[in-house]
């Protein structure tokens, strides 16, 4: 096996953020379920709102991704950073529901953190200035939440450099057809700036597969040159030829399926999200629905963040009260699911001086 493949499999993008379509769907259903369960008790039993379905959530995330791209363009952020921010945003909403945390806020946080993760240190205040009614505090409030949501995987592998590499290779192989290659280059780059970010391409395909799929969309012949048919590569004996042909077929199938995914959201669609009345109209009821069913307790990230900080600091100061202590450990005896309260007990006991973590090893 090619060592490059092995190396990609070590990346956090592959280890933590690549899924089969089925498992991705399951994750989204689970996230949606959990959010509903959590929000439902906040409404009276006879006045339950209509919740978003996992599919509707995805549609909304898609829409807000276009908003994020527009915002990034407005802030003149480089392509890589814009894409990283979009991937962070989409990853976040796989394990968090749009009903729980407001996408309009997380969008700005993703932009800010995307810059940071790419080592592009834009001043927080400067970024806040670019958006109406936005304070630095608001952008920052969601930062830790976002980091946890993306499972602390800050390195995103994009297909842009892969495209540059492929274009260099094509220029070498087709010195006579500079115009054709240049045209494909520009068009493929346009696709990569939009289509993979609006679809689930990053979750199912590798950067090079996504790059090849974009080339396939603009000039199929170029892909044939980069991935030549088996007959041309069989120099080292016929034995490998069978498996080579098989591998090539598998690669082509994968690229084809990635292509059909990308084609659902071609770059021209960006404008449609804003200008096509039908599309705009179809999104409106979803946004309305979201307004009615969202988690009002967690909509205000600034207040939420402040409360969490406070909670963390007061916990340290709070003297041990035996009363709550026993109630909590009782709760834990009954098999507390998340051990969160057990942890509280633990912490309290620790403050009391007991060595809860056991003797030194």
């Amino acid at each position, binding site marked *: 096996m090619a060592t490059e493949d092995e190396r990609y499999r*070590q990346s*956090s993008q592959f280890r933590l953020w690549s899924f089969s379509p089925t*498992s991705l769907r399951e*994750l989204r259903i*689970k*996230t949606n379920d*959990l*959010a509903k369960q*959590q929000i439902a*008790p*906040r409404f*009276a039993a006879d006045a339950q709102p209509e919740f978003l379905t996992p599919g509707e959530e995805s549609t909304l995330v898609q829409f807000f991704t276009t908003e994020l791209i527009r915002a990034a363009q407005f802030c003149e952020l480089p392509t890589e950073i814009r894409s990283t921010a979009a991937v962070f945003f989409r990853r*976040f909403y796989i*394990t*968090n*529901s749009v009903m729980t945390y407001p996408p309009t806020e997380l969008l700005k946080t993703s932009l800010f*953190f995307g810059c*940071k*993760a790419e*080592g*592009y*240190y834009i001043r927080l205040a400067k970024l806040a200035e670019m958006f109406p009614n936005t304070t630095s505090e608001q952008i*920052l409030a969601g930062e*830790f939440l976002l*980091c*946890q*949501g993306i*499972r*602390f995987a*800050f*390195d995103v592998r994009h297909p842009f450099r892969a495209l540059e590499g492929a274009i260099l290779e094509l220029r070498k192989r087709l010195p006579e057809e500079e115009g054709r290659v240049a045209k494909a280059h520009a068009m493929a780059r346009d696709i990569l700036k939009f289509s993979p970010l609006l679809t689930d391409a990053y979750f199912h395909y590798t950067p090079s597969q996504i790059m090849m799929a974009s080339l396939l969309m603009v000039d199929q012949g170029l892909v044939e040159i980069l991935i030549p048919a088996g007959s041309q590569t069989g120099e080292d004996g016929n034995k490998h030829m069978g498996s080579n042909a098989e591998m090539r077929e598998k690669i082509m199938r994968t690229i084809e399926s990635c292509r059909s995914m990308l084609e659902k959201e071609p770059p021209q669609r960006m404008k449609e999200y804003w200008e096509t009345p039908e599309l705009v109209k179809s999104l409106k009821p979803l946004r309305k629905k979201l307004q009615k069913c969202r988690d009002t*307790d*967690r909509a205000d990230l600034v207040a*939420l963040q402040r*409360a*969490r900080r406070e*909670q*963390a600091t007061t*916990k340290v100061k709070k003297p041990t009260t035996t009363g*709550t202590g026993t*109630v909590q450990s*009782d*709760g*834990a005896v*009954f*098999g507390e*699911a*998340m*051990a*969160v*309260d*057990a942890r509280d007990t633990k912490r309290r*006991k620790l403050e009391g001086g007991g*060595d*809860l*973590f*056991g*003797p*030194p*090893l």
Partner: protein
Amino acid sequence: MALSPVVTTTSSSAQNQNADNFQTLRAVSSPLKALTSGSGQTSSNGTPKPALAPAPPTGQTLAPTLDLAEQMNEEEKRKYVKGKKLGEGTYAVVFLGHLRSSPATRVAIKKIKVQKEYTEGMAPDAVRELKHLQELQHPNIISLLSVFSSKDQNLNLVLEYLPLGDLEMLIRDTDNVRYGAADIKAWMGMLTRAVWFCHENFVLHRDIKPNNLLIAADGEVKLADFGLARSFADPHRHMTSNVITRWYRPPELLFGARHYSGAVDVWSVGTVFAELILRAPYMPGNNELDQIKMICESIGTPTEDNWPGVTRLPEYTVPGQHPTRGRDWYEMRFGIVGTDGVDLLMKTLSLNPQKRITAREMLQHRWWHSEPKPTRKDDLPRKDESAGEDKMGMDLKRRPGMVADEDRGAKVARKLDFGQR
């Protein structure tokens, strides 16, 4: 074990959990849960309840649900048991810990503190360290086993346990630690492989020095502290030249270069090589100007002749003209590693970064094959054999290296130009 039975109960059920089994997590919620969370307590996910929370309909308990993201976080957290504090600095607190499923497997849990003076959220060092350690898995690079957030919104990095201190401790302890050419070769081999792997993955470490080279129980050296690391920049992007601790900083950075390459790390490797031989820092400059002066004296003055274009670097200044040192001069000081070793050293300390040997070329150098063969890692000198009683405390305080920086704070150039875009 003073571990409370309560915790053990939950944890043993937790071990059976696997990634796609979140539903069971929820299903075993305690019947008393409603009681606790209803009594003015916060809900399990840390969401503060509004002061005027509508009372939940009777007969229906507030489900102690966690978002999927929170569940995943809890799951990571529960794999480890945190033990006693090993050390504390301004940047992080380091705890000993072990795997819940196998208490013999020790880990170091590095809890990154919220930086009060940095008002732009998560500190860039933490972001850099996490970003790169997540991607780099190699025997000579400290491994990041897990990351989770604790309830007070602190980052916790679970790192492999490296109990034998760092290379600097060995170099400095001239009274108790003896080592020779074969040992130096073994250590240099491990360091070079680590740097090669970083560069192969397009990462610049930018802070290579002896106390960032930690030693595992089996003697393997591991490169740690990626707080200054970054990915290779695209040609049009600027980088800061204010990186790498001064004594180990190459001339192009001292001259303010904004475009540089893996050669900056190779220079640091060269200075570490020299330090291993001399058992003292090779060029311990007191400030940047002094550092340039030491480089000119020890290696030679960078000029247009030996480094075309150097005079156009933004901060090019040299104190005077010193000839470039010849092989004989190096042989006299560093001869203990043999002719081939000296050759490698000279190539890592080339003034012109374009002529400097690369990490890959270093691994192909003939020194590794010449006599003596490098020491097997189990036979390498180690601190604990001679340090006696104090050893434990010292090792633990220093572990895992990153925290130890602050003792040497005065000498360390860690100020970063975060303002630049």
